[in-house]
């Protein structure tokens, strides 16, 4: 069904659907002293891969996702770096061309479905809008596709619900409408910004299952932003941990969670209650994340890091590969995690 429009894709990018390289996001200032919010972010998402980005509020995880979707807040822009989607450069791409990608190629699901849905349009029509516009379907075909999509996301009685307005539905149903809307044009990349944070646990469980099943069925790649390590463990195959605008550690979910090589990742794991280990003592990370304007000079985590040495306070540690596919941005990683086979 799909033909690759990027015939000239270089061999190195052939494997990845989305390749973000050295992305820097911030506010451009006239006098040149730009405020950098996200810096030096690079990652690859292969077709069909489920990639999670974990971080606290202010870590830049949502901005990174929004940069891919071209939904950065007013005033915030990509300062440098590249976002390569299927071989095409998104940074600097004209608006009209880029909008054509949104829907059939890239789609996004937001955290709060109530504010992301149009309150005065029936949800069925909102889902049908994408297919009508991008796939050129007739009103009737688009509507039946919408109903089919709603059924796929597990909405009971989809025909009747398609005529409902957003306020008439519960949070879980609204989030499914968002998912149905996002996948209605079978995108190849689905961006999810905390899609289950506003939901109850049992409903979160249902929605995660729906997302996973859909991606497995259609081979859609997932970029999943959340603050919950457990949700990433349940949903994703690979992940990046962001702290203060940079990627602290990245790798496969199994590698990162069972063999963390950055003190921040380790701290997150130690401080979050784990249902499977009720007896484990929680070890909080001292201090709190720095604000965007008050970031330290060296490693942003140094002021909270129990292992920090002089070098950490003066230079920003580069990301280094420990094992193939597993990166960490920590000078002292080897010393801290000494004796652990890589």
């Amino acid at each position: 069904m799909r033909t690759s429009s990027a015939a000239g894709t270089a061999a190195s990018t052939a494997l990845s659907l989305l390749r973000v390289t050295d992305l820097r996001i911030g506010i451009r200032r006239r006098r040149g002293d730009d405020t950098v919010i996200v810096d030096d972010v690079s990652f690859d998402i292969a077709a069909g891969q489920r990639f999670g980005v974990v971080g606290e509020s202010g870590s830049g995880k949502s901005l990174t996702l929004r940069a891919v979707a071209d939904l950065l807040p007013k005033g915030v822009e990509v300062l440098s770096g590249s976002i390569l989607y299927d071989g095409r450069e998104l940074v600097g791409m004209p608006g009209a061309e880029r909008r054509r990608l949104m829907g059939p190629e890239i789609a996004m699901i937001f955290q709060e479905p109530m504010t992301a849905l149009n309150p005065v349009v029936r949800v069925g029509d909102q889902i049908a809008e994408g297919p009508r516009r991008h796939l050129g379907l007739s009103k009737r075909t688009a509507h039946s596709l919408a109903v089919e999509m709603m059924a796929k996301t597990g909405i009971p009685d989809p025909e009747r619900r398609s005529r409902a307005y957003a306020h008439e539905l519960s949070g879980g149903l609204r989030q499914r409408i968002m998912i149905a809307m996002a996948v209605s044009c079978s995108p190849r990349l689905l961006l999810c910004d905390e899609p289950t944070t506003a939901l109850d646990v049992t409903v979160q469980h249902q929605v995660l299952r729906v997302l996973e099943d859909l991606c497995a069925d259609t081979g859609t790649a997932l970029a999943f932003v959340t603050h919950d390590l457990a949700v990433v463990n349940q949903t994703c195959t690979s992940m990046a941990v962001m702290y203060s605008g940079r990627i602290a550690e990245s790798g496969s979910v199994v590698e990162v969670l069972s063999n963390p090589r950055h003190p921040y990742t380790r701290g997150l794991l130690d401080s979050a209650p784990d249902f499977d280990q009720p007896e484990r003592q929680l070890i909080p990370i001292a201090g709190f994340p720095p604000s965007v304007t008050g970031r330290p000079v060296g490693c942003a985590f140094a002021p909270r890091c129990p292992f920090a040495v002089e070098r950490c306070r003066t230079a920003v540690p580069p990301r280094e590969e420990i094992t193939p596919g597993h990166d960490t941005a920590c000078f002292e990683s080897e010393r801290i995690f000494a004796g652990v086979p890589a």
Partner: protein
Amino acid sequence: MTAARQDATQDSTDVLRVADLTKVYALHSPVISRLTRGGARDGQLRALDGVDLELRRGEILALVGESGSGKSTLAKILVGGQTATSGSVHHDGHPMPAHRDRDQRRRIQMVFQDPYSSLNPRISVGSMLRELLLLHRVVPRRDVRAESVRLLNLVGLEEDALEAYPSQFSGGQRQRLAIARALAVRPDVLIADEPVSALDVSVQATILELFASLQRELGLSILFVAHNLAVVQHLSHRVAVMYLGRIVEVAETAELFANPRHPYTRALIDSIPRMSVGSINEEFVLEGEPPSPFDVPAGCRFHPRCPYATDACRTTDPALADVAREHRSACLHASDLDAFDAAPDPRRSLEFGSPTTADLERVATTTTVTTTVTTTKDRSTSA
């Protein structure tokens, strides 16, 4: 009331006791009844429907449930912000009147979910505490400052915070301020409504630790309203599970998680996202969503979503009854539910050699490491 008098002996251990508490919100607005269509036939929202619960002296009792289950309404009634439609609240064996006097209000204090909206941005920390200390005559005027500093230290803040305004603090610090404010009047009960869910993960643990130490050192009794079961499991002594305005199960924490006697509790436990690699629950998904409190199902209120429901469940509304020592459940089939295994799927654990704390510690400090990186979930490394 009769219930409390009968259990006069228990009053020495129960600092707070509610019996048959009901809260009904009457809906007069035609707009709302139009929006909710047939659901609001009688125009009533039963937020609480016969709640019986006791908070013991010096314990942390967790109240869990999904949104709309009535847990926040219960918290508000306990703290005196709302009055119950019927039923009673006893504090220290004495009934709490609908309108509390200053001392009665003082003894039950609340910490709210969002520390960004629950602190007045235009009042400095010092004035906030001074106002309370003077109004409730906690200490003489000349000792107010010393007492304020003591309170700040108690929650892990320094004296210099006195001159600062809430906007100068991070989320976690603000929640500490909110706790200091609640403690200023020396309450014996603290009601905490989702106090960590608005905080960052790395900060949550410090606030949880603070609650635990306050309970240990001051002997505070804490009602901890939460939806995150992993948090609850770490912090609380007992857990009460709410569903649609009623307590459906109460037990000691370990007992509740090891041996849940209500299908809803089982569903909740099965829905918890797991953090240990290899511990992935995807076997059981609860169908449907919590029904609206406008239209509580007849019979057992959980039966439309319950996999174990029988005809009896559709007609009989089960009361909360003892199923084991210190363990009550409101399920007709509580005693014949099969054994529960909250542990990760054994098949997966086997593949992973079931990583535990000890394993993670070992991984981080010595030599062993998880071997294969392929599972049934087909976790592939990035290309």
